[in-house]
C-alpha cells in the first residue's frame, strides 16, 4: 500500500533483542489508544503475537542473535480501508519464503511455528527483500474481521 498514504502512522526502531520486544506491546497499545481503535482483546493479541513472532524470526535468523542489529517498525492506520498495517524492516540476512516448511501439526515440534502463526493471526503477511533490507508487512482488517 505504498501508493496510498496512511491516515496515521507511528515509526520507531528497537534493538534486535528479545528483551526489547516488550516495547511492541506498549507501542501498539499507545497507537491504538491514540487513534481510538477500541478493538477486542483478540484483535490486539493476534496483531501483537504475529508481530512478535516475525520480530523473533528477525532476531534469530536475519541477525542470528547479533544484538547490534535493529528492527524498524511502522504502524500505519488506513481508516478508509479499515485496516492496520505493521511494517518491519531489518538489514540482516535475506530470507526465502519458499524454503519454509509448514509445521506438521500432528507431530509436536519445538520450532517452526512463527511464520505459520503469523499467517493465521493476521489477514495478510507479505515479505520482500529490497535494497539490502528485509521488509515484512502484516495487515489486519478491522470492522469486518471475526476477531474484532
Amino acid at each position, binding site marked *: 500500500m505504498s501508493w496510498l498514504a496512511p491516515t496515521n502512522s507511528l515509526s520507531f526502531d528497537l534493538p534486535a533483542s528479545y528483551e526489547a520486544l516488550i516495547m511492541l506491546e506498549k507501542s501498539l497499545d499507545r497507537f491504538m489508544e491514540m487513534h481510538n481503535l477500541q478493538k477486542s482483546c483478540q484483535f490486539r493479541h493476534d496483531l*501483537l503475537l504475529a508481530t512478535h513472532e516475525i520480530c523473533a524470526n528477525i532476531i534469530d535468523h536475519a541477525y542470528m542473535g547479533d544484538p547490534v542489529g535493529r528492527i524498524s517498525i511502522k504502524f500505519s492506520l488506513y481508516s478508509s480501508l479499515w485496516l492496520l498495517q505493521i511494517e518491519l524492516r531489518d538489514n540482516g540476512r535475506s530470507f526465502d519464503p519458499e524454503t519454509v516448511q509448514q509445521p506438521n501439526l*500432528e507431530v509436536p515440534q519445538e520450532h517452526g511455528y512463527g511464520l505459520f502463526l503469523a499467517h493465521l493471526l493476521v489477514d495478510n503477511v507479505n515479505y520482500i527483500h529490497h535494497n539490502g533490507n528485509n521488509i515484512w508487512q502484516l495487515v489486519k482488517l478491522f470492522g469486518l474481521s471475526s476477531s474484532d
Partner: protein
Amino acid sequence: MIQTKELILQIATITPNGRIDAFNAPELRQEINQFMDEGINHLVIDLSQVTFCDSAAMAVFVSALKRSRQTEGDVKLVWPTSPAACRIFTLTKMDRVFDMCDSAVTAQANFGAI
C-alpha cells in the same frame, strides 16, 4: 515472569505469571529441567495467570513433554484464563497434544495414582 512452584506427591506444579516469551522462556525451561533432573517427571504447568505465550513458550512445553514421556511421565497444562492467550494452543493444535485442564487441581487429579 514471576512464578510459583510446588511439589506434592511427586507432581510438580509450576505457575508462571504474566508473559512467557522468547526472552524469559529459557528461565522456565531451566525450572522445568531442574525438576526433571531430580527425577520428577509428572508436571503441571498452570498457565491460568499467563497473559501472553509465543512459540518460544510452546517450545519449552513440547520439550518438557518429550522429556517427561521418555521416562513414562507427562506434562499437563492448565488453560490460560484469557481467551486471547489460549489462541496459540488451538492454532497449533497443541490443545490436542497436551492434556489441557481447566485448573491445576484437575490436572493434578488427572495423573491419578503415581
